[in-house]
């Protein structure tokens, strides 16, 4: 009898639930879409305004550009849209950042062919405005299983630092593995609010502006911008802190038209073009590390450029903790330049650059960190220029590479010293040149939380046997006071003065104003 009554009550509850479920769903959706600022949303607004002026001299010493740059960055973010933040529980946020960067030192003819064809610089962007990022993000959804990001966003992985407009979905499992899958459009120069920073090198793409019509054909190396679909995924370990690895795959296509031949077709008809979907880049890579606190560890990775069929990057490092204050290490890095698959330069690439280093990091006394590394960078080439032999042999031109760094911090300030020498040696490498020098920087807080001062000086020398007219020794110093009249604002001035025989004296003045305000209702 009791069981029957219980079943009846359950059935009644179920029936009642069925009747109110649509309304409950609507109410839940409405609640989810209603701003809940009063429940703990945190807002953040920040920005930078900077102005800098300096001269840029060409290789022949003439002062050509008087740069008067002005830029502004504005960022906005709202965190904890769900209300009160709790670790490991779902949270939502919105973030965006925009900027403008202009040079009032431009001459009119540089951007306007009609104004002065002898000054016209093809492809130069004047006052570009870009949306650095702008997205909605959700983390730790569904008990930590899911996360997402929709909008313009960065991806940082072994394939590089990259940006796209689209959506990313993250799946995190309890089984020590997580995965990401994403798709959208690669950020490319010439598209609205976009920068060319994230394209693979090898092709100039952008707004043609003054390059329209007949003029465009005079500059066939400058391609039109068009949307670039992109997809990718990553599989990454999660949980253990002593070992970590991430595998990445990414594929990007180019669309639209692109000039092919760089000279008018002999048979007439102007400059031929290709059109349509074609591969821009397809790469995969892995990066991982494993460290045991008391012993040391290893890290390594590689990038395979599927489009060109070469391993474009491979690196590895070993570290041994020889007692707490001393770490010994050895590193190797192999790099082959690769480019957008629209570019011809992929097919000029021959051999890689291999750098091997030994490294010591130590803390001889508390608050003093010192690192010393040294090794060789090997430049490969088919053929032996010293023996004038053909491509049936490979020559190696080595550079000697050394680097020393030290930092001593005392709470309210620090002093940093950095120096190094990189020089070619051996018969084949005699044309590689050298560069060496050091700089010292001191920073000190003068008035707690309000006034800081940084100053530094440097001496560097370099020589290039292929361009001896560019050899020089430079002495420079910089002074940079910084003031924070209030918690939310900082003003900084940086004065740099360099002297070398190429430019005589060069001055650079930089002023910046940063602000950051947080509002937590």
């Amino acid at each position: 009898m009791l069981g029957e009554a219980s079943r009846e009550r359950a059935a009644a509850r179920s029936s009642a639930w069925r009747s109110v479920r649509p309304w409950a769903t609507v109410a839940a959706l409405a609640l989810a879409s209603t701003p809940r600022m009063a429940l703990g949303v945190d807002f953040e607004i920040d920005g930078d305004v900077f102005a800098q002026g300096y001269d840029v001299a060409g290789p022949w010493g003439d002062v050509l550009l008087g740069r008067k740059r002005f830029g502004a960055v504005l960022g906005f973010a709202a965190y904890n849209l769900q209300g009160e933040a709790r670790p490991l529980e779902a949270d939502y946020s919105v973030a965006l950042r925009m900027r403008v960067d202009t040079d009032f030192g431009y001459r009119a003819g540089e951007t306007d062919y009609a104004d002065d064809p002898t000054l016209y610089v093809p492809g130069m962007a004047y006052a570009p405005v870009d949306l650095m990022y702008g997205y909605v993000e959700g983390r730790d959804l569904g008990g930590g299983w899911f996360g997402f990001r929709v909008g313009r966003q960065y991806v940082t992985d072994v394939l590089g630092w990259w940006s796209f407009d689209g959506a990313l979905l993250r799946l995190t499992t309890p089984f020590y593995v997580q995965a990401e899958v994403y798709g959208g459009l690669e950020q490319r120069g010439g598209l609205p609010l976009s920068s060319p920073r994230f394209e693979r090198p090898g092709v100039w793409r952008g707004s043609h502006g003054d390059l329209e019509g007949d003029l465009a054909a005079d500059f066939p190396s400058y391609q039109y911008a068009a949307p670039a679909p992109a997809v990718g995924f990553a599989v990454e370990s999660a949980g253990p802190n002593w070992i970590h690895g991430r595998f990445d795959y990414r594929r990007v296509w180019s669309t639209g038209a692109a000039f092919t031949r760089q000279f008018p077709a002999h048979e007439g008809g102007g400059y031929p073009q290709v059109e349509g979907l074609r591969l821009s880049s397809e790469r995969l890579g892995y990066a991982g590390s494993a460290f045991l606190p008391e012993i040391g560890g290893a890290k390594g990775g590689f990038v395979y450029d599927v489009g060109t069929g070469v391993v474009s990057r491979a690196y590895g490092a070993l570290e041994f903790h020889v007692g707490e204050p001393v770490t010994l290490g050895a590193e190797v890095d192999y790099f082959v330049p690769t480019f957008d698959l629209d570019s011809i330069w992929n097919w000029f690439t021959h051999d890689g650059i291999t750098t091997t280093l030994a490294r010591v990091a130590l803390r001889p006394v508390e608050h003093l960190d010192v690192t010393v590394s040294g090794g060789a960078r090997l430049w490969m080439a088919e053929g032996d220029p010293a023996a004038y032999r053909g491509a049936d042999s490979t020559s190696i031109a080595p550079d000697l590479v050394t680097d020393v760094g030290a930092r001593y911090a005392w709470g309210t300030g620090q002093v940093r010293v950095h120096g190094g020498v990189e020089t070619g040696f051996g018969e084949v490498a005699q044309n590689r040149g050298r560069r060496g020098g050091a700089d010292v920087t001191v920073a000190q807080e003068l008035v707690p939380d309000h006034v800081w001062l940084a100053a530094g000086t440097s001496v560097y020398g370099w020589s290039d046997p292929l361009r001896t007219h560019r050899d020089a020794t430079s002495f420079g110093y910089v002074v940079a006071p910084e003031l924070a009249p209030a918690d939310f604002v900082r003003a900084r001035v940086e004065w740099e003065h360099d002297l070398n025989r190429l430019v005589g004296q060069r001055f650079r003045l930089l002023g910046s104003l940063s602000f950051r305000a947080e509002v937590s209702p």
Partner: protein
Amino acid sequence: MRSRSLLPGWIALAVCLAALAGALASARAGEPTEPAASAAPAPAPSDASPRGAGHGLYPLFEDAEVPAAWMPPGVAATPVPSDEVFPPQTIAIRFNHGWHVKQLKLSCRACHAGVYESEAAKDRNLPSPETCDGCHDCNHSNLAAVKAGTDPNGQCAFCHLGEDAGVEGVVALSVWPEPNLRFPHKKHLARNIGCPQCHGAVDELELATRDQLPRMAGCFTCHALSGAAAGDARGDCTVCHLTEPNGLLRTAFPTGKLEPPHWLHGADHGPDWIARHQPVAAANSAMCGSCHASPFCTDCHDGKVRPRQVHPNDWLSMHAQAARQDSPRCVSCHQLQSFCGDCHRRVGVARDAPAANRGAGRRFHPPEAEWSRATRGARHHSFEAMRNLNACVSCHTERDCASCHASKGLPGAGGTSPHPLGFESSCASALRRNPRPCLVCHESRSAVLGRCR
């Protein structure tokens, strides 16, 4: 027919036994410290022999070195606790934990009862002075007028330090700043995680100092669960570290800046960290994102103001040689055609620079006779291009190269093949993936492309 097993039986058995032994050992280590005596502790003996002059001032008598086995787990990786997480303390009392636990049979709980209900690291889980009154002949009920008894163990100087401690009611003050982390003692104890598992063998020591506070390497013994795991012992930084409203870790503290230890994924932020951070960010950018928001990365990787730690004074003058040495690697932050090319065209270095910016007869490279027109020699451009093509691409457009290398380039040009050895074996897939670069140099109906098809 006999099937082959994946593992020989003896290996499977050995692995099982080892796992069992490990589980037993770990369970033993995890046993909470049981109360060693009843809730009503015996009166403190007045003889001062085990606690006499010099005792209770250091973890071990006369500051002897504490054996590693008695220290908190992870101390080998981090001998000293982090100043940022556990700010330095001033301990102005003497106390002999070993004596109270082993001789007086007091449990940890007898004095630190608060930890069993504590849900925040900032909770003060030290015993109140009145707790001591239960055994010591003194009365701390009014801290403005503490009364010492007649027994030696009730005199101020018996526990308190300072010159003339207790004279006119003055004793040196102890300062135990709040730790900067999240730590619910209650949760850990409820999971049968005993005091020694984080603090080491305090019952073997006299004075417990900062050295007995946990080390991060020790936390990772348990905190290694994946993000969606049902348990709370996840490896996420935010599980233990304090966060800002934007979800990033709080890194700025009066005692210093919180940075990763040298053993965590090799992410030690030493003087050469900027040059070495790439492999760490490539493998685990989420770890970087625990402390750094995107603008921190963009300031260098996509910035508009030269970062000094990467490019020192007078970088404009020396950058050409640095680019030739690929150090630092330009393409890590710069797009060659736009960032580099824009400026190189403006100052007249690039070949397609405006006529007004490039004086007649001016060459950046060695004379044409050596650099391009001569047969290949030590100063021929082909070797520079093979060694470091990025340096070429930062100034030149495709048209510059195609003028000589294209099979249909400038009239009279040679059509010199720039392809590496063995290129023909892979040209078919290259053509299939993207024909555009092929068509820059080759006619679409040329015999060369026909072979690739």
